């Protein structure tokens, strides 16, 4: 450990002696303090806090990420090119120890800078919150500066599958038309069944959306007297000139005599909305029933995955914020590994270029996803209604599919979104992030980098002194 520690200290000294630490710290502080001054908000306290959290954390992540990648490539590649690494490897230190020492040095440096930025952001938010009137402060405390757990409907997918199977069986008994693929027919049937679970027909027709049944489970015991929040999102097939739609909510339980009824709300489509509901609307089992009254002439569609969820306070903001920063640190650790791995066998500019290219590919997951869904890189022609085809699809589509699987290991964690919406980042999620991002993905890249570095002839690089 003494040897690895020596390399860690060396990395820190380089960061300080080349003034990199101070420049980076200043840049991050400017981003944290200066950026909120430039941003426009929606006028609400919650909006201000959410924008502040989103943009400052996003800026910090972006700046640190790029610098980390650059540093990681430079610290090893430059040592090899300037031949200083020769003075180190002839000492009784294994190459993996040198590699690990540099990795630890950069990760701890990131931790320090992230900690500094995080403290600044936290301090700024607390400062702003303390200056607010008590009622606004309370809203902020319950909606943003909080760690809220989320509960969604359970078992809907299973219900859909069961209903689809039944309907498909009935259809098969009647017989399918000629030339119809049974699998395609079943998939189409499933989409129909799923739509029925999602749509809220116009109220004038007399039909109402099925109730959402939310099971709070054991959390009900701690939620007595505590307000809950509904977070909803819907789409609309018909364009509305105002862009907003009128809805009303009735919430209670199966044993409620008189369910709670909300005011009529005018809500925009395709965006998330949160509003509080009174406490103690659930029954002894912790079940909550939510009815929607669609007061429009158009059908509204509530997606199964994000159409409806109940949020409740489970913890404080501080620890949640720290866990969020921890996940961001996991991203930085992965970028460090990527940069060091590239520098293990490439010169500095080439390693930096390749690492940045890989980062760019990782950020283009939307494009990759489209290619995989369409099954071709040639895209979908909307005029002709046909997808293009290319011989390279045979290679690229599976490659993109594999890449997406890898990228998903990282992108499934979104601490910035969670923190800006006051959602809980659990210890389980944090541990999973460490396991997936740092150990699994980072470990695989790191093993490759160490292997290549261990086998490299270090005296073939020309000194630049």
């Amino acid at each position, binding site marked *: 450990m003494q040897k690895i520690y020596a390399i860690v200290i060396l990395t820190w000294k380089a960061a300080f002696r080349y003034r990199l630490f101070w420049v980076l710290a200043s840049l991050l502080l400017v981003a944290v303090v200066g950026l909120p001054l430039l941003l426009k908000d929606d006028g609400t306290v919650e909006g201000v806090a959410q924008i502040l959290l989103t943009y400052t954390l996003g800026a910090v992540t972006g700046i640190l990420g790029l610098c980390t990648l650059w540093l990681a490539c430079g610290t090893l590649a430059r040592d090899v090119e300037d031949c200083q690494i020769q*003075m180190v490897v002839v000492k009784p230190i294994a190459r993996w120890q040198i590699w690990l020492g540099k990795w630890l040095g950069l990760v701890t440096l990131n931790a320090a800078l992230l900690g500094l930025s995080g403290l600044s952001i936290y301090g700024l938010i607390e400062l702003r919150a303390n200056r607010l009137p008590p009622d606004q402060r309370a809203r902020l405390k319950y909606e943003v500066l909080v760690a809220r757990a989320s509960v969604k409907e359970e078992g809907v997918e299973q219900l859909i599958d069961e209903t689809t199977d039944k309907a498909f069986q009935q259809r098969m008994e009647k017989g399918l038309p000629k030339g119809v693929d049974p699998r395609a027919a079943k998939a189409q049937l499933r989409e129909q069944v799923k739509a029925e679970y999602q749509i809220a027909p116009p109220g004038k027709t007399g039909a109402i959306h099925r109730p959402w049944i939310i099971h709070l489970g054991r959390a009900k015991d701690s939620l007595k007297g505590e307000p809950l929040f509904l977070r909803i999102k819907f789409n609309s097939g018909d364009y509305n000139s105002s862009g907003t739609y009128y809805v009303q909510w009735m919430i209670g339980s199966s044993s409620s005599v008189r369910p709670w009824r909300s005011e009529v709300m005018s809500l925009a489509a395709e965006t998330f909305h949160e509003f509080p509901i009174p406490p103690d609307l659930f029954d002894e089992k912790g079940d909550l029933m939510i009815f929607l009254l669609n007061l429009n002439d158009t059908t509204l569609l509530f997606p199964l995955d994000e159409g409806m969820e109940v949020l409740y306070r489970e913890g404080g903001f501080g620890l949640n914020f720290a866990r969020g920063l921890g996940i961001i640190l996991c991203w930085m650790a992965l970028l460090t590994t990527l940069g060091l791995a590239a520098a293990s066998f490439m010169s500095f500019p080439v390693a930096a270029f390749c690492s940045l290219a890989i980062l760019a590919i990782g950020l283009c997951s939307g494009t990759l996803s489209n290619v995989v869904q369409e099954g071709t890189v040639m895209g979908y022609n909307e005029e002709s209604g046909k997808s293009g085809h290319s011989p390279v699809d045979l290679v690229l589509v599976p490659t993109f599919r594999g890449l997406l699987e890898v990228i998903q290991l990282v992108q499934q964690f979104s601490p910035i979104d969670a923190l800006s919406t006051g959602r809980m980042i659990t210890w389980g999620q944090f541990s999973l992030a460490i396991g997936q991002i740092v150990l699994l993905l980072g470990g695989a890249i790191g093993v490759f980098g160490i292997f290549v570095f261990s086998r490299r002839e270090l*005296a073939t690089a020309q000194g630049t002194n």
Partner: protein
Amino acid sequence: MTTTETTPHSALRTPNSEEVVIAVRGLTKVFKDFWGRSKARAVDNVDFEVRRGEVFGLLGPNGSGKSTTVKMLLGLLYPTKGHIEVFGHSPRHVATKSRIGYLPEESYLYRYLNSHETLDFFGNLFRLPGGEREKRSEQLLEMVGLSQTRTRAVGEFSKGMQRRIGLAQALINDPDLVILDEPTAGLDPIGCREVKDLILALARRGKTVILSSHLLSDVEDVCDRVVIYYGGKIQAMGTLKELLATPDAVRITTPVLPRETMERVLELIRKDAAVDKIRIDNPTQNLESYFLDVVQKARQAAEETSGATSGHKVAAYLRGDGEAKPAPDKILERLTTAQTTASVPAPAPTPAVSETVDSKKLETLTRTPEQPVPAPVEPKPAKVDLDKANEKLSSLLGKTK
């Protein structure tokens, strides 16, 4: 007139250890391009061994394969063919490196560290405890004359100063094997002398030193055995005596003698040797010793310098027990002993020290087993013009004809 030390320091030691520290067999290194095509054959089928306690020299012109060989010994390059063993292990064996110290041909140090931090960093890589690291760092900085500059960044040093700190880091672990690649490059003559003294001090302690250089005087002063590289191949290998001795000539150095004595000596010599084979002149000290004398006098006059200082002792932990006197002191001893001997009128040989006339050696040098004792030759009529020789003799004696 001054006398010079004619016997190399290396000849005063006789390393007789049979332990092989480095074994190289059939070593070949071919550098290839990105496509795997051969670009240069830097080392070609080299074999040698280095024994414990030896000072082993790698000599050769630029690009002959010396540094490539050194780098393969250290695991910085991998052989294309052949086999290397260092202390019985592969060069890439990590634990073995704790016994090796290396000074590369350029000082590849971290420019943002100061000299103390540099030694502390490398000491940490050898897992030296904090107290020991501190002690050795102080001694080494003192030894290389950089104790006044311990807080200056290495990037601000001159090349010579960087070489000195490079040498210090090579010795932080008191290595059993020291590999020095052009150790005197960039050093002033005092520094060169100190490095050579250090090499000899290490060798006296049983350390093995490998010295790669194209500076012949450095190698000649300290090495026991040398290999001479050219074109990646070993062209010659052996001890300095074996390689440098000129078997068909003899050199005798004496104090200034009266003219008559000199004439008698010359007359005797001319009986057995052709006049054009005889050379007479004043022995000269080499420029190094003259330079050292001048600097020593200046130091005694307390002249200041802002650069590296010199004349420091070898670090205590490197000296071991029983520090040997530095070479200039030895020379002084021998000179005063020789002068005392010369002041005695009777020209009796005093064989007590090895630098005075060794009659056995004289016999060996002057006669070979196959050749019978030459009969005295009748002086031939003087067909050769001796005037020039006499003129030179007169000028040497400082007397007019």
